[in-house]
């Protein structure tokens, strides 16, 4: 394989293997006797997968500041959505 051919396949294939591995891990976690730790672990695994998809498949790791800001804005405002709602519920007596 020429160097160019490799670079087309390499990153996507490696990431695919990692993502499928994490998928298998999350199924294993669900089947394992881990009690109440299962949900946070599964969600954490999903979070890792999401970040990897964003960085590698969606190429945020190589994007300009402007593009990263746009992506970051989405995350930030979603965080506001959750934070302010959580503030409401936690402040209820």
């Amino acid at each position, binding site marked *: 394989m020429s160097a*160019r*051919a490799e*670079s*087309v*396949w390499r*990153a*996507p*294939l490696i*990431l*695919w293997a990692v*993502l*499928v591995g994490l*998928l298998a891990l*999350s*199924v294993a*976690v*669900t*089947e394992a006797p881990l009690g109440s730790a*299962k*949900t946070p672990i*599964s*969600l954490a*695994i*999903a*979070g890792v*997968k*999401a970040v990897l*998809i*964003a960085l*590698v*498949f*969606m190429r945020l790791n190589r*994007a*300009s500041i*402007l*593009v990263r800001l*746009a*992506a970051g*804005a*989405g*995350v930030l*405002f*979603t965080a506001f*959505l*959750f934070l302010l*709602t959580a503030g409401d*519920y936690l402040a209820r007596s």
Partner: protein
Amino acid sequence: MADSAPLHEPWESHARQREATVFGLWTFLASELLLFGGLFLVYAIHRWEDGPAFSKAAAHTDMWLGTLNTALLLTSSAAIAVAGRALEAGRARTAVIGVWVTLLLGLGFLVVKAFEYRKDLHEHLWPAPDFALAEPAARIFFGLYWTSTGLHALHVTAGLVLIARLAWMAHRGLLMKRPESMEATSLYWHLVDLIWVVLYPCLYLVGR
């Protein structure tokens, strides 16, 4: 490679044109994140308020079909990622094959979903008078299940239309000439995958 593509106003260079596409797409994707974020928020609220009764309802979803669908979407994302990189490297044939593989895997997702929905309806998991589970929290869980998977499936369908358009462009010899189309479609498809990746544990892995 990009220099053969048409340069639209108001951009002065292909680099700026491409940057504008990616920036504009991400602004749109940010709004999509907020759309699904709202559904995830409602899920979080009910999980917080209704506790075990809410989560236990999730045991009635089909984990294996959900896992299969996750694997299909992950692979389709990899396929379109390869297609995008191949297009940049000037390897049109690899790019076209990647587009077709993405399309087929995406269609596979919808087919599996159709079987899954049929199974769910057969088990009376649609919130109707004959709903299978007694607890009100279970009804809410499944309300969220149908809403979020339905909305996601609509997004998958829209994505498949865009990917089919890429295949049509390839047929007309336009894929190399309009690299922004591949870039934009690709980003949208990855987001559809990303949302499912977070939806999957929420709907299929909790409460077991």
